[in-house]
């Protein structure tokens, strides 16, 4: 009976999650173009310092603007708000931020508001203006109006949020297609996992088509080992960190100490 229940659960979950599997593929509701990502896998090793990902695609000749973005999962975080108390600037209370993507990197051929209509920007979350309507701020003194710009400054500080208009859309030599090229700077703070790179292209501010591809980010080598150890075995990691530090201190003390004795 239990086995039958499990099988039913498995089959039903396949039906429920099947549409999600298709989401990673190019959408069929509008025209779609092949999108190329170089590199499509980023290995975060000990010497990783962020990298640039080159995006290219062949788009219809009649499109006049395009936007490419990487948008992470929405998260809920609590931040501290600073305010002036008498003469001092202090953290006065908490602001809870909901529906904020952990990563938001966008590059477009021109400012998003000049290449797409407001409805499309809102539904596809294109540009900081659309993001402002999507993110929710809650707190004792939130919604004074400045929270969003301060939040963007905070996120831009470590490269988690970026918005540029440096992408290029040029006609191919045969004038049959438009060649789209953009660079997305991937910060060191990029979370591991699969990230959807989404490309939208427009004609007369109307969505013509979209395309998507997957960018894989994974920690390898020492960073991966230490990260797993810190989160999966925190007690061992804590003892290990203390032992390493004490061993380094003793070794250095012995090396420098014996050198001094030899000089004597």
């Amino acid at each position: 009976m239990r086995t039958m229940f499990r099988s039913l659960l498995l089959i039903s979950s396949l039906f429920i999650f099947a549409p999600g599997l298709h989401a990673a593929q190019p959408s069929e509701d509008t025209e779609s173009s092949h999108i190329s990502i170089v590199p499509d896998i980023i290995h975060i090793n000990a010497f990783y310092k962020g990298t640039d990902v080159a995006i290219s695609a062949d788009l219809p000749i009649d499109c006049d603007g395009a936007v490419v973005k990487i948008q992470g999962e929405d998260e809920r975080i609590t931040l501290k708000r600073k305010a002036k108390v008498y003469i001092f600037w202090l953290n006065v209370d908490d602001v809870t931020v909901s529906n904020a993507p952990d990563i938001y990197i966008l590059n477009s051929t021109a400012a998003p508001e000049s290449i797409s209509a407001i409805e499309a920007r809102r539904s596809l979350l294109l540009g900081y203006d659309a993001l402002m309507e999507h993110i929710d701020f809650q707190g004792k003194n939130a919604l004074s109006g400045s929270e969003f710009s301060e939040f963007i400054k905070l996120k831009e500080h470590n490269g988690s949020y970026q918005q540029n208009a440096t992408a290029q859309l040029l006609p191919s030599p045969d004038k049959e297609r438009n060649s789209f090229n953009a660079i997305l700077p991937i910060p060191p703070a990029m979370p591991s996992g699969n990230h959807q790179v989404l490309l939208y292209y427009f004609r007369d501010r109307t969505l013509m088509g979209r395309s998507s591809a997957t960018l894989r980010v994974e920690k390898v080598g020492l960073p991966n080992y230490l990260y797993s150890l810190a989160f999966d075995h925190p007690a061992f990691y804590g003892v290990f960190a203390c032992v390493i530090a004490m061993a380094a201190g003793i070794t250095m003390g012995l090396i420098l100490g014996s050198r001094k004795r030899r000089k004597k």
Partner: protein
Amino acid sequence: MNPYLFLPIAGASVPMALLLGLGLMVGFLLGLFGVGGGFLLTPLLMMIGIPPTVAAASDANQIVAASTSGTLAHWRLGNVDFKMGLLLVAGGVAGGTLGVQLIKILREAGNADFVIKITYIIMLSIIGSYMFQESLRNLKPGWLSKKKERIAKTSTFATINKMLPLKIHFDKSGVTLSMLTVFLLGLLVGVLAAIMGVGGGFIMVPVMVYILRMPMHVVVGTSLFQVLFTCINVTFMQSYYNHTVDLTLAVLLLIGSTIGAQIGARISTYLKADQLKIILASIVLLVMISMAFDLLMHPDILLSYKGAH
């Protein structure tokens, strides 16, 4: 070429030379004065993009290395009073636990941040200006008459100490004190260290010099011994509960700081006690001024991640 190193827990990439240099500077201060450097290094790490909670926890981890190295160097020079150190550690651990609870109550009341910052500024200005004034006075001629006045002032502490039981002689420091006095001073420093989120070396050093009247070179070695235990406790707790110790960051800092601590310990034997005090007082006052400036100036960003000062 300046290679970068990826810090997996901090999620940041930082030039290796910068971290080695910061470690060297903090280790040097640790070896020279017995001050952990937590009050100095954590804000510097935050400035280069390390999240505040990771900066504070990893800083504590590297101080374990630097204080091990420094304690070893001072132990060889005969500058560690283990008896005094262990009593201060016991008081410090009890005070730290008490301080953590106090912070919890203040956070619930909503004014913890103000209390932390004001405590920092008040403590740094009292310690810095007193040390600076005292050392300057000692370097001036006609110091003897002032010394007599000072001895008269400290008699209150001596009277209280005489009244307390469990007296013990500390051979290395050359003082006779009640075990309760030492424990209570350790407790007080532990409470302040927990409120301020630091190892407590920069409070412990003036307490040992001006209240316990220990010789400056024994003070430095004994303070390092106390800092070592405080930071082992912090490293383990932060790893276990908050996952905020970045071992890559700590190792790079500790390579610099263990070398710096040895250099600092050597140089400390060539400097006079008052010269050491004047340099430390100047650093403490500079940090205080920078913190006060930080509190008064409009911040660049009005939101911050939790855990930042």
